[in-house]
């Protein structure tokens, strides 16, 4: 599970709003990779058509976003910087994947759907609320704005999946 939705706001704790463009790029790329991992796991565990279709869409969409991000970084000659947020995302994903693997199939479908909704809500909050306002490079900002449209669609699609696998 991703914990961004309730990211701590204490002034002495790290804050996503303090990240620079290269750190934001790293965190976003990491978040994409995590959702692709979730999708591959769902495809391995589920025989539900709705879940499988959603998972395939997540793979193709997030791979497309990351491919464009890599192309832009290459063009800019920039290297993404690992940071506390990327590390937190990864550790949260490891826990979520372990939890998912331990579930029975029907429970796994419901858990995947619920997590996809929560994950996209959290990422959308982060992208639109924290990242886009502070990104300095206009091309990077444009890519995030383009990607945010996709992720908002995913959130709506995830809501439908949650209702379908109840």
């Amino acid at each position, binding site marked *: 599970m991703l914990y961004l939705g309730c990211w701590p706001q204490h002034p002495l704790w790290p804050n996503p709003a303090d990240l620079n463009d290269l750190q934001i790029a790293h965190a976003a790329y990491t978040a994409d990779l995590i959702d692709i991992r979730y999708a591959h796991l769902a495809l391995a565990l589920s025989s539900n058509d709705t879940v499988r279709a959603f998972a395939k869409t997540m793979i*193709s969409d997030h791979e497309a976003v990351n491919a464009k991000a890599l192309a832009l970084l290459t063009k800019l000659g920039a290297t993404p910087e690992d940071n506390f947020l990327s590390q937190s995302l990864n550790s949260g994903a490891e826990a979520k994947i372990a939890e998912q693997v331990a579930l029975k199939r029907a429970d796994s479908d419901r858990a995947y759907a619920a997590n996809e909704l929560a994950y996209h809500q959290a990422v959308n909050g982060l992208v639109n609320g924290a990242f886009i306002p502070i990104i300095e490079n206009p091309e990077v900002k444009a890519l995030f704005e383009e990607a945010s449209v996709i992720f908002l669609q995913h959130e709506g699609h995830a809501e*439908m999946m949650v209702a379908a696998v109840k």
Partner: protein
Amino acid sequence: MSPGPTRREAMAALLGAAILPALYTSRAAAQDAVISGTIHEVAIHSFAFDPAELTVAIGDAIRWSNADLSPRTASAEDGRCDTGPIEQSESCTFEVTEGMALSYQCLFHLQMRAKLLLVPV
């Protein structure tokens, strides 16, 4: 839409890369055939088919061009045919044939839907 990939490939070859907008890459290879009817353009952008309703006739063709970042499909809601994934900056063309489904959607993003209105030739 015509039924199935073989038909799609044949149509793509029939229409040919030469008549496509330079911005988009087509799967077509041959360039020496023509289509008798109108070629209708449908843009895919911002998770929508544009236009969402298109009036066509038998013998026309429809060319979908994807300006969005991730792949899209134009797939008949009766499941009988689809374009397969259309990547960003790619196009795919179908001939309008008898009995084709008049509602289609993107299989990856089911909220993307559009309609065809069929008129006599």
